[in-house]
């Protein structure tokens, strides 16, 4: 099976732990990585790219010391190595200007507000993951029990 990664970025340890707990459903099939800053995430991306692993989803907080989440995601959005990577912003503190930038520059795939509902986060990640796998042409059959069936039905074309 292909190595497919989900990356979570947040400067608060407790938030990362909570996200990891909510995404535990995926942990036996996919690789879930934790980063405590944007810089750490960018380093990790270089490493994963060097190993030619897939980066399916980046779930990022916005307000962090150093580079902000929107800045991080904007940078990734124009990196042709991660063209298909799904970007999810998970934040409680985004101004309207941040949100506009997140949509226009970071090309967000999804926006979730803190505090989030674990079920919603799980379902969102499921749908994004399904889209990523089909769009990348990865054999979805190997992952089918972790994917979102309605999304799969919508995306399979003759």
């Amino acid at each position: 099976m292909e190595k497919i990664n989900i990356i979570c970025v947040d400067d608060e340890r407790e938030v990362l732990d909570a996200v990891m707990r909510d995404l535990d459903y995926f942990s036996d099939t996919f690789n879930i990585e934790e980063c405590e800053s944007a810089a750490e995430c960018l380093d990790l991306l270089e490493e994963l790219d060097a190993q030619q692993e897939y980066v399916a989803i980046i779930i990022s907080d916005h307000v962090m010391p150093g580079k902000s989440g929107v800045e991080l995601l904007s940078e990734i959005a124009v990196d042709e190595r991660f063209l298909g990577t799904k970007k999810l912003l998970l934040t409680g503190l985004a101004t309207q200007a941040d949100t506009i930038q997140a949509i226009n520059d970071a090309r967000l795939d999804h926006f979730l507000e803190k505090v989030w509902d674990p079920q919603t986060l799980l379902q969102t990640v499921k749908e994004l993951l399904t889209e990523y796998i089909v769009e990348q042409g990865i054999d979805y059959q190997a992952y089918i029990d972790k994917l979102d069936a309605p999304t799969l039905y919508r995306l399979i074309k003759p």
Partner: protein
Amino acid sequence: MFRENLKYILPVVLPLIILALPASSFGIDGLTQVEHRVIAIFVMAALCWVLEPIPIYATSVLIIVFELLLISENGLWFATNDHPDLQGKLLAQSTIMATFASPIIMLFLGGFFLAMAASKYRLDINLARVLLRPFGHKPKYVMLGLMLITAVFSMFMSNTATTAMMLSILTPVLAFFGAKDLGKVAFTLSVPVAANIGGIATPIGTPPNAVALKYLVDQYSVSFAQWMVFGVPFVAVMLLIAWLLLVALFPPTITKIDLNIKGRFLKTPKALLVYITFIGTILLWLMGELHGMSSYVVAMIPVAVFSSFKIINKEDLRNISWDVLWLVSGGIALGVALDKSGLAANAIAAIPFANFHPLLLIVGASALCLLMANFMSNTATANLLLPLVAALGASMQSLLPYGGHVALVLAVTFSASLGMSLPVSTPPNALAYASGHIKNTQMLKVGVVIGIIGLLVTFAMVFLLNKMGIIGA
């Protein structure tokens, strides 16, 4: 650890052992080196398709490449420089490479173009909307409608794409079912079952049919229309049985359902051209005797039309399921190697098949095919079994009273499409299972019953065809 790696070790080691054995150990008189190598390639293909260490289409490519290396005139030096008597008959490289573009592959390519254009211009979903209307709102009849439409679509589109489309129509409706309503199971299962069955009705319905066409040539040839003459009634009977079975096993308690499909028929010039080409191609396929064109030639017409009018553009072209085409090519290449090397004929002569009762052969081969198709890809099953079965069928005189070669090939081909008792049996099954509405055991129950009934209906059909003189001598 060792057990886990067995699927990688066996396909490498066993063929090598076979190559290392002396030629006399196979019990076939005068086995040539080429024939010896064909046995090794066949064993490798069988192990790779059953154990799936690599994708199934990659196995097909391996077959073709190994044939080119080991049994073609332009292969490796040590494989081609021995004394002709020992070496046997080498194949021309063009014969092997041509399997990638055999008429059968072109027929499928034409089918893919039709399906892609129909889906792109929403002909499929709009037809589904219109055709479902007469079935009203009673769950039982809506399900019948759904199954009929799924089956008809899967005659011309891939079973997987049809299933995905119909399940996506169905998903919002299933939310209205009660949590305990068994009708959800019936509806979710009805789609893959109908798609699996529907593929049987036409030569382009499903890849195993394509593989069968390779063995239905010359005096045994079956035209597109002839195939449908027995394929469509078979599918109709099976659908009716499947519907009754699903309604009896999982009766819906909900009293009214409303499938709400949005949209309207496109009326742009391109869309109209798609409709005309679609209908025109099918009519030409059905009226082969009038215009003289074979179904293979007809299949190239939509390819030309859709390319010229940019209905299928460069991006669409990239999205064609080349893996399916290659999978079939490998099967054809395997058949070509068995046949052209002379191995098929020699092996049949060496084994006293004449002592077998011909009915035992038809029943046994079909049952084996059904069993294998439940656990592995239907196409790979057909790829493996049909060349063997076809060689037998062509040589067994005692088979003639029972419909001969054609009866045997058809029975095995139909059986390959009837394996549907597990989520892994077919991609449509996997998609339906992913919905989370059905349990393993429910799919198993339905799949086993339909498989067995399907086998019996197949035998009945072959018997009738033979009695009516449509197949056989």
